[in-house]
């Protein structure tokens, strides 16, 4: 089991206190691609932020890779994310000051378990897997949306995390690129034995995931 969430409850206090997540429980194992499907406002993004440890202001228990998340300090959390969780966002968010290769290398350079050379060859082979190796030296801002998203996936994988979290990864892409990205994520799940969580309102992803969870008004409907 990579991720285990028990009885997650979440409240927003602004503009007035109301409950966004109602007693959500969820567990994800290696090699499993789980999609969280729902309308905007259903609470799927909120759940995703909690599962990815970005939001720790919730009630309930969350364990990832045998680590109780609530027991970690702020720095502990950052280090934990760096090592165990890879992120893919709707707006890919590559850093425009850096080239494609440097963008992929940044999380590993922070982790600094390997030499710069090793990190660079890791990054290049990941870029090859996502089909972006020939763009390695290009500035990130010169790439199209689909290309950037592929680089973002390579970046999410660089530290070999056990959990990949993707927030609407195809939300900003055309159909062809959407399919390409989803296939890539599926491939990662299978071949690399990762746990992948995708928040989406794309029904194709919903139907093609290993397991799908639908959220309506903060409640999970299995």
């Amino acid at each position, binding site marked *: 089991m990579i991720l285990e969430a028990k009885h997650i409850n979440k409240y927003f206090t602004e503009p007035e206190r109301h409950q966004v997540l109602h007693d959500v429980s969820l567990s994800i194992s290696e090699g499993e691609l789980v999609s969280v499907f729902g309308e905007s406002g259903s609470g799927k993004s909120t759940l995703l932020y909690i599962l990815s440890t970005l*939001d720790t202001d919730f009630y309930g228990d969350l364990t990832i890779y045998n680590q109780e998340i609530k027991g970690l300090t702020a*720095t502990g959390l950052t280090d934990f*994310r760096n*090592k165990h969780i890879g*992120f893919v966002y709707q707006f890919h*968010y590559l850093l425009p*000051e850096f080239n494609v290769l440097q963008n992929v290398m940044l999380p590993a350079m922070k982790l600094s378990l390997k030499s710069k050379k090793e990190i660079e060859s890791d990054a290049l082979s990941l870029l090859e897997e996502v089909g972006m190796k020939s763009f390695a030296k290009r500035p990130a801002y010169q790439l199209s949306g689909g290309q950037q998203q592929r680089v973002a996936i390579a970046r999410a994988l660089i530290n070999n995390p056990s959990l990949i979290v993707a*927030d609407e990864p195809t939300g900003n892409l055309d159909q062809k690129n959407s399919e390409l990205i989803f296939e890539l994520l599926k491939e990662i799940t299978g071949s690399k034995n990762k746990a992948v969580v995708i928040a989406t309102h794309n029904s194709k992803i919903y139907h093609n995931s290993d397991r799908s969870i639908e959220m309506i008004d903060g409640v999970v409907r299995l």
Partner: protein
Amino acid sequence: MSKTVYTKTNTFIALQYLFARKKQSFLAMIGVLLGVTTFIVMINFMTGVNDFLDDAVFSGSPDIIIGKDVKKSNSLLGQGSFLENYDKIDLFLEEQQNIKAFAHQTISPAILISNSKQFPGSINGVFADEERLMVDLERRLIAGEGFQSLSKENTILIGISLAKRLDVSVGDSINMILPNGKNKRLIVAGIFSFGITTIDNVRTYVSAKTIQNLLGYTNKITNIHIKLKDRNNVDVKNDLIQKFDGITTEDWKDSNKTIVIGNKVRDILTWSVSFALLLVAGFGIYNILNITVIQKRKDIAVLKTIGYSSNDIVFIFLIQSIIIGVLGAFFGVLLGYGMCYVISTTPLDTSDFIIVETYPINFKLWFYILGFLFGVLTTIFAGYFPSRKASKVDPVTIIRGI
């Protein structure tokens, strides 16, 4: 997992940001550079002027002058202007801790007449051995000899401006007429210059014995000059007034009010202008980093999600301002030195107030170190707040807030 933030990676990211906006970084650096340069040039120049004036005035003047209180005496001249019972004052002065030396003088009004010109003024009758401790005349001599020549008793030492007015040089003779009608021919034995016209225009030295003999009162003096160990402590002045009747005292602050005020004004000017410039430079850096932080909120959020902690973010932004600050301060120090050098070799065409060949300017290492430190500290201070702001970026609100 390293907890230290001074990593190559963080520095690399910071440099990348810095180079991504070369022009802004360069302008920020120029701001610091100008601040530091101005500080160094101003403080060296202003203290240079202060030191020059202090040196000219205080090496040529006593710290305290004791004289007869003429309001309490009947006649302006003769018996009335002599200090009575000055041996008691001497005894008192010898006991004081803060007194370096004191000297007696017999001063009299006189008219000096050369071949072609005449000049009314006052003549300082001095005792060469004592006066040597008051005034460093050897350093100020332009021609002839110093106080030792006064032992001949028919010699006079005069300031350069006065010598020009009387149109005399060393070896020429001057006729001195005292108020009682007596006169004496004196040989110009030395010409000196303190660099300040108010001294060089009027100052004369003759032997006190000469004056006393002409006035007909041996062993009478009109003034006592005092040099203090600590010039800023003039307590002895008050003690003197309380202990002795019929005397007046004047300290260096009274007699050099314009110079004391001038020094203060220059100090205030130096510090306020330098501070203002560094403040402007600091605001420049603050602005640039602040805008960067606002523009880069998403990037900062991404850095945080991929494993960069708040401390890493602070470092990444703070190191940018430190690099700007150190470079600016370094080149500011170089430019400051260059400008000081140019100023120090620039000929100064003064009016009559001071006589000096080039602009007086200090080359004090401490001021360069201070300028460098000010430049760097300003930038650290200016960079700190935007960096803190950057580190507080919450990745959730930014990723959600699309």
